């Protein structure tokens, strides 16, 4: 068991290696580079060259073949080609890796100059995570029961209504859905001359805690309790928890994100439940005269939940990905908005760091999934 975990975890650096290489490659071949974006059209080639040199962008990407010449020279002089080896690896990619191992993931060049990439992501990741997590929880807690109910009451009006509704909710392009929802909920409406404030306030201004002193802003009522426990609010570290009183601003984005989860959970639960209920062993159980509830819980559910586990696993891995559309539409400072902005500005460091984080999340999630699966499906135990 442990051996499996260790073996799978050893894959992680390999995965990260490939992911980073591919990203560097894509960055290399995509035309345009961050220096040019930074300088815009008002730059002269001299400035561009100068800055590229200072940033090290004129170094080779992966390996430096010129090092071979240096190696030959060194060898012919009877010396060990140490300088050549150093030059061989003095490339953008390896410098990045060396820095990354120290925790330095580079700096933003264009959009947030000189801010460390690690910090930029650390600022935004918790917000995206919280958003996605809440959406996922809503999705599961609504989707599974709905799936079960519709699976049991197949082909009833209830079934059709629920299925249609969930399907429609994910079939409407966000490009049409987002505007209309904000139109209805986020605008001050003019109803017969009366100004009625927005039902849900717009995201804007402070959203999450920055540090202990802002804790009071967000959770002011809790401060006395914490002090009573001996915790000073100023000593609370930077947590980026979404302030509870800002939650109304986030109702719409969370709702929209949860639609997808609800739909998938409902459909999958229903589908697997139906399939499982048609199996022989269920018929056997029923024929034996077991109560329906017993049949359901003991026989049907466990097997029906298998594909759900897969989906859940994948969803958990996907929590670190922000939905760009939702985040940029509502102006939520999350990872998704950062990612696309970084792409437009060719901010390689940000992109690579983000991609690596997502890779880690997925590898860990999938590993957890594969570990849990034999527990859920005894048939697989003999295969593992």
């Amino acid at each position, binding site marked *: 068991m442990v051996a499996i975990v260790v073996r799978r975890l050893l894959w992680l650096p390999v995965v990260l290696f490939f992911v980073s290489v591919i990203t560097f490659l*894509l960055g290399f*071949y995509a035309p345009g580079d961050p220096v040019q974006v930074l300088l815009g059209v008002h730059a002269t080639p001299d400035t561009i060259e100068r800055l590229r040199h200072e940033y090290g962008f004129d170094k080779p990407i992966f390996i430096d073949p010129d090092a071979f010449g240096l190696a030959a020279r060194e060898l012919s002089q009877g010396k060990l080609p140490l300088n050549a080896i150093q030059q061989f690896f003095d490339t953008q990619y390896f410098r990045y890796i060396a820095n990354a191992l120290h925790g330095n993931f580079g700096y933003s060049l264009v959009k947030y100059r000189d801010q460390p990439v690690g910090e930029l992501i650390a600022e935004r990741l918790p917000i995206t995570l919280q958003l996605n997590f809440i959406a996922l929880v809503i999705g599961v807690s609504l989707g599974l029961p709905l799936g079960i109910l519709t699976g049991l009451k197949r082909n009833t009006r209830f079934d*059709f209504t629920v299925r249609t509704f969930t399907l429609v909710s*994910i079939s*409407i392009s966000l490009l049409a859905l987002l505007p209309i929802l904000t139109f209805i909920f986020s605008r001050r409406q003019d109803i017969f001359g009366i100004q009625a404030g927005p039902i849900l306030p717009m995201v804007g201004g402070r959203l999450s805690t920055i540090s202990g002193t802002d804790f009071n802003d967000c959770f002011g009522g809790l401060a006395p309790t914490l002090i009573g426990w001996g915790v000073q609010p100023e000593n609370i570290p930077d947590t980026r928890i979404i302030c509870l009183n800002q939650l109304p601003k986030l109702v719409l984005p969370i709702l929209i994100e949860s639609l997808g989860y609800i739909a998938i959970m409902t459909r999958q639960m229903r589908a697997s439940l139906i399939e499982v209920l048609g199996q022989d062993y269920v018929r056997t159980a029923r024929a034996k005269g077991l109560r329906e509830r017993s049949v359901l819980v003991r026989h049907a559910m466990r097997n029906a939940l298998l594909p759900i586990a897969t989906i859940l696993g994948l969803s958990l891995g996907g929590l670190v990905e922000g939905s760009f559309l939702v985040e940029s539409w509502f102006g939520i400072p999350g990872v998704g908005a950062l990612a*696309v902005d970084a792409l437009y500005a060719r901010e390689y460091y940000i992109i690579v760091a983000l991609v690596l984080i*997502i890779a880690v999340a997925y590898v860990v999630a*999938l590993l957890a999934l594969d570990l849990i699966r034999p527990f859920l499906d005894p048939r697989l135990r003999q*295969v593992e």
Partner: protein
Amino acid sequence: MTQTTLSEFQRAEDSSRMRSPWLQIVRRIVKNKFALVGILVIFLIVFVALFANVLAPYGYDAQNLDAKEQPPSSAHWLGTDALGRDMLSRLIFGARSAVFVVLLVTTVNLVLGVPLGAIAGYYGGWVDALIMRIVEILFAFPGLLFVFMIAATVKPVILGWARANGLADLARSGYLDYAVVIIALGFVGWGGLARFVRDQVMAVKVRDFVLGAFAVGVPTWKVIYRHILPNALAPIIVLLSAGMGFIALSEGYLSYLGIGLQPPNPSWGNMMAENAGRYWRTFPQSIWLVWVPALILTSIVLAFAFLGDALNEALNPEISD
């Protein structure tokens, strides 16, 4: 007398066996009303796509700047857009793009995902590990953004290749954009499918009838093809049907990001993206500018979904009432 009854009986048996399982599946689908509507919608769209040139009253880029954003009228049944182009014609030509993209992307996904997933699930071991690691690597890239990255990188490469090989016309014609979008979307989508197939195959291959087939000595590929895949097929089809809808939606988001099909090529996604921001500020116009393409797109997605559900039920005789 026993002879005739026997032969009658046998003939009846034969005929019911000859009534192939496919027909039975079709029958079951037809019984499902939603699926029927879905099939109808899909046929309609494909028909429109095929005969777009004949059906559309105007060209898709026939501009008339004096008649911009007109409401529906007798001259323009669905009104005009910001450049005075007829919305109905653009929607009709947009069907062509939609069908083309969805079909090809799904094909790419299928061709890449199903065999790889089946192989991974069946053989297990290092084959499985390798393929699954590749899928994990694929998953590491954020969906739409990966498409963006690929499109941004792939497009100039294809452009350069096309120009160098004298296919400059192809490069200009807009098919290049299709190719980029299809490659990007197809490349991103097969991972999920492969993973799913692999899970299904792994679950199915230990079922009794499969073990029985092996015991009897049926060769591996036949087992996979004849026994494992069909049983794994149903959930795959459900996934695919949802996938098709998602592909259609993704095309729209790509246009919004600026890497979809180029103007003036119409695509529903294009049309929605153009007006997404303006939507609710110009309320009446937005109905035909944004909502008509959105609703048509939605109905396609729904059609695929219902069809998928119906196929699912039809292919699993155990679950029909």
